[in-house]
Every structure is written in C-alpha cells, then in structure tokens.
C-alpha cells in the first residue's frame, strides 16, 4: 500500500467519527484535499476513547490478578489497593492443597478429546452440507446451538446414571461434543462455502475420486479453517460450566466447577478464589493471544454474508 492511500484513509476516518467526537460539523462541500477542522480534536478524542475502551476491558482482569497475589488481610484493607507485598501463598494453596492440577488436567482432557472427536465428525459433515447445500440437515445440527442445555440434562442424567456413566470422562466428553460439534459444523460450513469448487473439479478431472479430492485437495487447504474451529471449540469446552456441574463426579471435576465449589464455604477466601479464577482464565488467554486471528475469524464466521 502506498503512502498516498494510507493518507486518504486517515482523512476518511477522521471525518467518519465526527458524530462520535462531538466536534462541530464541518462545512459540506468537499474541496479536493481539505484538512477538516476537527482533525486534531478528533485525534485526541479517538485516543482517549480507545484508552477508555481498553481500560474498561482489561482493568477488571488486572484487579483479579492483583487480588490473587494479596493476603486476605490486604484484600480487606482498602488502603492497600495497589501497594502491597505480593504473596504466592494463594497459588500454593489452590494448586497443592485443593488439587487444582487434577482439575486442570480434567478440563484439558475433556476439551481436547471432545474437540478432536467433534472435528472428526464435524468436518466431513460440514463439507457435505456445504457442497450439497443441505440446509435442512445443517439446521438439525445447528439446533444444538439453540436448545437450552437444561432441557437435555435431565434425560441425559437419567440415562447415563442408569448406565453408571455419570462421573466418568465419557459422559462429559459426549456432552461437551454437543457444544463443540455444532460450532465446528457452523464454522467449517462457512469456510467450505468460501473455498472455490474449481480446485476439486480439476482434481477430479485429473483422475481423483470425489473422496480422494476431498482428502488430498480440500482438507489440506482447510487447515486454517480447522484450526479456527478447533481452537474455538477447545475454548468453549474449557469454559463450559453447566454440563460439568451436573455430569462430572469428584474424579472428573473440571475447573469451572472447582471454582464454583470454592465459594460454597461459609466465608469466602477471596485471595484463593481469585488465584483459582486466574488459574482457569490465564491458560485460555495465552492460547488466545497466540491464535488471535483464528479466534477472530471463527467468531465472525458466516456473519458478513447476506
């Protein structure tokens, strides 16, 4: 991109956000290269607004992080909001005494297996639904995104407790797949929709069977899409609370349930609770930082088509 186009882009946005910046309306007729009156005021406003947005989003998380390094005495002392002697005691408590390593493993295992299985089931399904425009079939799978989870939990609980499966990993993974699969089908469908048909067609002309073309041409081209779907599915599964609340047992408890159990005691151990909350959110945030563009493309999948 040349410097010139950049320049014009900048002038464009400065005008665009005029109403937001509450700067006086600029004169209408556009000379070729005008310097709008509000440029400087708008620039200041934009920076201020962006800083406010970032603060609004990050400050609570920062506060959680701070509190996780405070003793409970310091947390109750409002004079020590920002200046205190940090302690690692909360983390030691949470990780060792409350066995959080087990919960971390449980959460990871359930999220990982349910994501892999959902990819195996979901990617071919999304492919077929996209290529053969099976809208009604897609609707069946996407129903799972709409239905309230509670309405499924009572029958599931009944069936699985009769099968003596409640408290095992299998049920948890099954229930999390129920969240992952529709997500993966949804994202992959919009991904396959955007892949040109010509590549597969020419592969078939060159002698590959349709399934062969899918395996050797389409799948390798879809790695980015599958990464997107897989990462989002992992995150959603890691964060899932309701299914694990009902279907997990003492041995398969996942992190969100473990945190919830933390507050069932009479008085809240705030430091420990914040350390526990940090332990759950930080791994997922680190994953998110490294896979930012995939998460963004997954969250916005299918949103911009008419």
């Amino acid at each position, binding site marked *: 991109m040349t410097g010139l186009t950049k320049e014009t882009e900048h002038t464009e946005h400065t005008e665009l956000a005029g109403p*937001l910046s509450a700067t006086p309306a600029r004169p209408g007729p*556009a000379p070729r290269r005008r310097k709008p009156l509000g440029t400087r005021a708008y620039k200041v406003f934009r920076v201020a607004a962006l800083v406010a947005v970032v603060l609004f989003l990050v400050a609570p998380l920062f506060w959680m992080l701070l509190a996780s390094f405070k003793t409970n005495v310091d947390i109750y002392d409002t004079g020590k909001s920002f200046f205190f002697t940090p302690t690692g005691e909360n983390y030691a408590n949470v990780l060792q005494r409350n066995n959080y390593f087990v919960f971390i493993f449980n959460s990871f295992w359930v999220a990982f297996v349910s994501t892999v299985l959902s990819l195996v089931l979901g990617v071919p399904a999304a492919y*077929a639904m996209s290529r053969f425009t099976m809208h009604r079939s897609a609707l069946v799978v996407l129903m799972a995104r709409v239905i*309230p989870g509670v309405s499924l939990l009572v029958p599931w609980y009944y069936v699985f407790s009769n099968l003596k499966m409640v408290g095992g990993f299998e049920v948890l993974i099954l229930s999390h797949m129920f969240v992952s699969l529709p997500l993966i089908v949804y994202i992959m469908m919009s991904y396959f929709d955007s892949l040109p048909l010509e590549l597969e067609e020419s592969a078939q002309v060159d002698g590959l069977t349709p399934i062969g073309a899918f395996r050797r041409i389409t799948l390798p081209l879809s790695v980015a899409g599958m990464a997107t779907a897989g990462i989002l599915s992992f995150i959603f599964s890691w964060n899932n*609370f309701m299914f694990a609340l009902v279907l997990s047992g003492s041995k398969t408890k996942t992190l969100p349930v473990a945190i919830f159990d933390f507050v069932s005691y009479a008085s809240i151990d705030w430091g420990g609770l914040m350390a526990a909350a940090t332990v759950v959110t930080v791994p997922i945030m680190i994953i998110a930082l490294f896979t930012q563009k995939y998460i963004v493309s997954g969250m916005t999948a299918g949103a911009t088509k008419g």
Partner: protein
Amino acid sequence: MSVLTPPRSAQSQPPSGRNAGRATGARENFSAWANLHRKWLFAAPAMIFVGVLIIFPLAWTLYLSLTDSQGSVRAATEFIGLENYLTVLSDVERFWPAVGRTLTFTGVALVCEVVLGMCIALLLWRPFRGEKWVRVAILLPLVATPVAVGMMWRLIFDPNIGFVNQLLGMVGIPPQPWLSGQDTALGTTIFMDVWQWTPMVVLILLAGLTSLSEEPDEAARMDGANAFQRFFFITLPLMMPTVIVAILLRGIDALKTFDILYATKGKGGGSFHEVETLNVYAYGLSFDYNQYGLSSAVLILFFMIIIGSMWLLTMRKKAVSK
C-alpha cells in the same frame, strides 16, 4: 491458486492408475459406493450424533412435562395432561417474573452491546498505531471463563471491599449494594454480560464494516453529506444484515445465560430470586428441587420463546436483505 493444480494432477495420475489395476473387486465396489453416497456418508454421523442426543431428550422432556414426575425420575409418575403448563402459566410468583427478567436481561444487554459494539467498531475501523494491543484487549474478556468472570466481578462489586465502591467513595458517592441489592443485582449482572460479550459484537460488526465497499460512502461525501448523515443513511443501512446476525448470535446466548448468574447469586437466583431467569429457574427446578414435571413444562415454554424470537429476527433479516 491455479498454480497448484498441475503438480497435483501429475502426482495423482499414477497412483489412481495403479489402484485400478490392483484393487480387488470388493474394494473397488466399496470405493465406488462410498463416492456415490458421500453426501450422506459424510453428513450422517454428525447428524445421528446430534439427533440422538437432542431428539430423544427433547421428546422425553415433552413427555415429562405432561406428568407429575418429581423426586426421582425413576419414581412412578402419573399422566396429568396439561396441568403443569396451567400451573406454570398461572404462577405469578416465580414463572412470570422469571420471563420478565429473561427478557429484560436479554433486551437491555443486547441494546447496550450493539450500541457500544458499533461505537467501538467504528473507532477501530480505520488502521491506527497500537491497533494490535487494542485487539488483544478486546479478545481477553471474550475467552475468559464465565464462572471465573462471575467470581471476579463478585469481588469488584463487593459492597464492603469492592473496587467499584472504593472508586465511588473517591468522588463522594455512597457505597451501593450492587449484586447483593434486591433492585441492583439484575442490572449488575447485565453489566457483566455487556463487559464480556460486547467484544464479540465488535468483532462481528468490524468484519461487516471491512467488507463494505467504499463507493457509496465516497459518493455521499462527494455530495456533501457529513459524517453523521453518512453513518445513518449509508453505513448503517448497509450494515443492517450484519447487525441482525450479531443480535441473533448474541441473543440466543443471552437468553440462555446461566454461568454468571449461577456463579454470582447461586441457587434460585439469590434469596429473593432477583436474577432468576428462565434458564436458572428451570435448572433449579430440575436439579435443586427435583420437580421434573414442572421444570420440563418451563423448558418447553422457554424453548418456544427462543425459537419464536429467532424466527422473528430471521424474518426481519430477510426483509432487510431485500
């Protein structure tokens, strides 16, 4: 992309030729069959999985809603027709307030998220320095575990030691009860939802904005429209389909919000049921009070509300797209 094709075809030619010579009849038949029926071969496993896990439980829920099942699902039940529905629909203590709270929560949260989301998306629309960091900040709430987020806000909104009341104290405003107040709890949970999910709306709207063609905006500017006019008469109408998708996606989840409500207020949405939405109410009936018949009736009605609002939005989207 087309560069890819020649080497591929060169590679794929020999193996398929060899296969044809060596493959047994059965294998060939299977492969031919699989290729012929690949549509359903690919789609069926996922559909069966979801179907079994949904349709059977849904049918069961429907059945339970017509019985007086309670205590244990295994206990003998009697078919009582629509009595549960009548009980629920005439219940002004818990059911109707829960409907009201669900709609308030969803409605207010959605309006805040879409308006705020649109403002932030416009701020981010054109490139600027430090964009990367703002995008990271936007991502963080989005991926945070809702239960942990609930706990975090519990500390921040704590009436005695919470940071929010400390801040208010600095400017001389008396401490507010926030989550523990009967009137303020629902609003506080809406605030949490807005904090966590506005970023998702921003991402969706931003994707929509970037895909807009610049020409209409350009033309309007040539005609002397100011930024305000261009947004409301050009950008917003063009963005309507995307806005509705954002509302649809976010609305479904907002109606079903459970994690932060249960994490911050516990069973029954607090001692005065101040944040008890339909989902929390149904969960409580099922797993805290074991009233399966009643809870199933609530769930069926809840499901109908969700489907109904989705249908309305989809209709609206179709109208807007035309």
